[in-house]
Each structure stands twice: as C-alpha cells, then as structure tokens.
C-alpha cells in the first residue's frame, strides 16, 4: 500500500495547511505555499483540505505506485505523465498498481501538488504533517523527498471509495481512468506575465523616500534565484527610506514584504523566521498568496496597493468561489454510478 519514490524532483516535501499556533516558540507555520491548489487536489480525491499532500517545485518527482490509487495533481502547469502517456491535471485520476507517474517540469507556475485519497500518511508532529526543513522535523523525517523513500496512504473516505469503484469499473485494466469533469485551474487566480500582486501597505511604507514610494508600484521586481520556501528575494531598482531605522525584532507574517538596507525587498513565505528586524513596507493580500507561490525565478512582479477592507473582501470572495466549487464537485461525485 505504498508509493516508491524513484526520482525526488528538485524540492519535494510533504505539506498540509500548516502548523499554526507555535510561532511564539519560533516554529514557523510551514505548510503548502499554494493553499488553493493543495485544497483543490485534496477535494478531488475525497479528502479534507487538511490532508497531507506532496508539494513539488519546478521539477516534479517520479513515483512508482505499488497499489491502485486515486490521485489528483493541481497547481502550476507541469508536463505530467503516467507510463509515458499525458496525465491530466485538476481531475481525479485512478492510477493502477505498477504504474509510473512522472510529474514532469513546470511549464507555467512553479509548484505542483499531488494528493492521494486518504492523504499521505506521515506521523503528526504538533498537530501537523507539514515538513519543517529548518528544524528538520515533520513530514518525511523533516527533509525533502529522496529516491528510495516510500510514501504511505491513509484510509480513503467513503466518497473516495465510491469514486474508486466507479473508475475501476470504467477503467478495465487501463493504466488510468478519470472522470469527464474537472476543476478549472483558474478558479483561484490566472497566471499572468508580469504578475500583478496586490498588497496592503504598512506605516513603514510612508517612511520610504517619495521616489521610492512611486517606484514600488511603477517599476517591476524580479524573483531572484536566491528564493526558497522561506522567502522570495526580489531584485529591482533599490528602494530607500528617508531614514533607515532597523527596529527591535518583531513578529512576521506570510506575505510580509521586508526591506533590508540594500533596498531589495524580500517576500516572506511559510518557512520564514518567526521574528525579524527589517522594516515591513507592505504585506501581500491573502487572496494573492497562492499566486505568489506560483511565481518562478525571473518572474516579474508589479505591486498594486489595495485597502485592508478590499483585501479582506477579495479573500472572502475567493473562499466562497472555492466552497461553491466543492459543492459542485460533491454533487458530481454523489451522482456517480458504481
């Protein structure tokens, strides 16, 4: 009942929605960076949004399924295959025992999520299965996947069992069987080039030099190669404060845009330090965090300021769209004939 890792890809980790409530002990929330994609992948295989998934970055893993499994791939557009044949994304797919799934490379976006029905079964540490790469715990022994690893699956939900039975009847020994329906990949955001990222400004932003304030919106920033799950280092025309003042370290948040003395902003992500001393000039709106998570090295970003209230309304609307999608999906799955 396991999946053998033949090739681990570039940076593949087990993640769920994060380990919240421990930041006062220095423990970053970690968790999937594109929570929309990880949630949709879980829903497609009858899991709760909180089930553990595999997050892959730029180059996906190659996996050998030793058992039949209901899987879904969501996130960036990766050229995934099963036994050499194209594997559709944003659909529930039944993969038969012995199949080799190669998740391929990113063509659009940066991260791909693989959900299996029942979730990836790794021990819970502090109420989460997310990998903490800094402190090396959680997920797959606190590290990225390696060739030779085995991933185990939890028990499928009744909804997933029904779907598996229906797809088995339809598949009849083929490597894969899938449903006629799928989820639109653009339900949360549409990848654009350059990327428009909406932010809520902070008080520290007012301390920037007037030219820097204009420049923040009018000139693009590029995601540099020194980016990881802790944060994206951006490069662009350097921004400057009227008076640079490093503050006593204070709590950080996902999407916080820090400005170190070199004037090149850093967007903090889920594996960030829990406290930091660099001034935070803006924070990415929650609605755009999944979009940021799909930014690749060299992606150009333009920032756009929105009001706090607007940011909250946009996020709530996004979550409503997600729930509506889930309701439709449930309806489709209920109508399936075994």
């Amino acid at each position, binding site marked *: 009942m396991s999946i053998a890792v033949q090739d681990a890809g570039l940076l593949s980790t087990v993640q769920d929605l994060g380990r*919240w*409530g*421990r*930041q*006062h*002990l*220095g*423990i*970053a929330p970690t968790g999937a960076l594109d929570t929309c994609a990880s949630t949709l992948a879980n829903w497609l295989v009858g899991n709760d949004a909180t089930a553990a998934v595999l997050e892959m970055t730029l180059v996906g893993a190659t996996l050998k399924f030793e058992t039949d499994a209901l899987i879904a791939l969501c996130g960036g557009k990766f050229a995934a295959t099963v036994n050499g044949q194209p594997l559709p994304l944003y659909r529930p797919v039944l993969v038969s025992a012995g199949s080799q799934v190669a998740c391929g490379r990113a063509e659009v976006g940066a991260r791909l999520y693989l959900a299996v029905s029942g979730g990836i079964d790794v021990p819970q*540490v*502090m109420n989460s299965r997310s990998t*903490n790469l*800094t*402190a*090396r*715990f*959680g997920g797959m022994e606190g590290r990225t996947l390696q060739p030779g690893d085995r991933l185990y699956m939890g028990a499928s939900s009744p909804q997933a069992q029904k779907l598996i039975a229906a797809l088995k009847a339809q598949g009849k020994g083929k490597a894969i069987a899938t449903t006629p329906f799928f989820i639109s990949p653009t339900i949360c955001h549409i990848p654009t080039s350059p990327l428009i990222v909406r932010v*809520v400004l*902070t*008080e520290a932003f*007012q301390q920037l030099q007037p030219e820097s304030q204009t420049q923040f919106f009018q000139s693009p920033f590029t995601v540099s190669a020194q980016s990881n799950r802790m944060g994206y280092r951006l490069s662009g025309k350097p921004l400057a404060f009227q008076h640079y003042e490093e503050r*006593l*370290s*204070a*709590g*950080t*948040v996902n*999407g*916080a845009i820090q400005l170190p003395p070199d004037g090149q902003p850093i967007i903090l992500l889920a594996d960030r*330090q*829990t*406290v*930091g001393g660099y001034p*935070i000039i803006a*924070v*990415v*709106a*929650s609605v755009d965090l999944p979009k940021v998570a799909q930014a690749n090295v060299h992606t150009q970003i333009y920032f756009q300021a929105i009001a*706090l*209230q607007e*940011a*909250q309304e946009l*996020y*709530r609307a996004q*979550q409503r769209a997600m729930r509506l999608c889930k309701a439709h999906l449930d309806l489709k799955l209920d109508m399936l004939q075994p």
Partner: protein
Amino acid sequence: MLLHGVGDAIYLGVLGVLTCVRQRPAPFSKRYNCCISTTSRMYSYMHIYPLGDATLVIEFGKDTSPEIRQRIRAVVAQLQTSPFQGFVEAIPAFTSITVLYDLQKITYSEAEMYVSKLLSITSEVQPRAGRTIEIPVCYAEAFAPDLKTLAAYLNLSVQDIIDLHTQPLYEVAMIGFVPAFPYLVGLPEQLYAPRHATPRLAVPAGSVGLAGKQTGIYPFETPGGWQLIGRTPIKLFRPDAEPPSLLQSGDFVKFYPISEREFFERSQQAR
C-alpha cells in the same frame, strides 16, 4: 488597579500624546494611553495597527524594558487562555505582540475592538512566573572557535569572558527566529561584540554565541553570524515534547561552566 478603561476613545489624556510624538499617526491606527500598574507608575502608549489583511500588531513602545515584556506576556497569556472568535495565534516580541486572526471569521475593526478592551482589563493579570533554568556550557577551545580572538578584541582573558558570561541571570526576552532560539538579555557590557561580517554556513547545535547586546543558544545546526564562545549538551528543541521548547519567554537562564568530559557525558544522557 485601573485608572481608566480605554473603551473606544482615540486619545486619552495628554500623556498618550506626549509619549507618541515620535510616531506619526497612520490610517486605521488608534493610540491608547494606559496604566501598567499604579505601583510602578510606568506609563506607556499602546498603538494598535494592522499588518496586512489578517494580522494586527499591538505596540507598547519603541524601546524594550522588563516592565513592557512582562505586560506583553500577560496580554499574550490572556489571549491564549480566552481567545476571541477567529483568533489564530499571538507572537510576543521585545516591544510588540503580533496577533493573527482568521479574516473569514472576524474583521479588523472587530479584532481591534476586542484587543483594546482586553488591554484595558489585563493590567493586573500576572503572567506565568518565570522559572530559572541552569544551562551547562563547555567553554573548551574545541567548542569555542571565536573565544580567543574575541578575548583579544575585547581586551580580556579567556577566563574573564567565562566569568563574565556565567555571572548574570539572563531573561528570556522572547523565543523566535528559528524554533526554540532564546533571545537572552542581560549580557555584561564588557562582552558587547559585533557579529561576523560573513555568517558561518553551519553553526553546530548547542553553540552558545554573542552578538551586540545579546547572548543566545543555537538549538540546532543553522547558518549564523554570532561569536561562538562555547557549547551546551542540553537540547533546547524537542519536537516530540510538550512544550517543544525548553525555554519560554519570561524564564531566566544561568550558565555554568563544565569540562569537556562532562560535556560528553551530558551529551550521552541527552540522547
């Protein structure tokens, strides 16, 4: 005892204005003037403002002090024991508390109103009493790559540094940066030293370091730029324990020197 509740008032009294002159008002922010305790007569402004769309920050001043840190711990304890609807978590720091909330359950103004009411009633709540934890440190050369050069830089002998470092009762001002990393305050002035210009790529777990006015312990191997003067065999971070961090904000730390032999014996036990 309370002098006054804060309610919905924006400015309360002249003191609030006087103590805030260095800060410029910003949209959404409100300032509160509140009394920490009638006995200490420590007045401080409180400044509540949003940080993005799912977080609010309570700032207690520009500079940190033991009183401010105690007040912060009391408020955090109150938030953790009686959370508001939609409360996610609170990160205490030197002068501020970062409060995360679920924006699907509560708006900013609702969260702000709750927090400001809470601040008006928690003045007298005592936080958990800090424990004193003794931490053995081996200052032997093998574990203290920077001790000799630091001694030369500070114009002290190696023994002077050990004596000075083991003398104070340090306060754990906060835990953060990486899991279980304690920010310790109370370093003797003679030991103030700069960080390395280029950080080491890997500082071994248990390393005890100095930087600026602070001393700290690396819970596990990470990159780091502090001056390394010793190593402890004690494990600061144990992911399977509850709580996973040996030290908590508000605890006190006393270092004591041990020999290399003791270090290895204790390391065996710690496994």
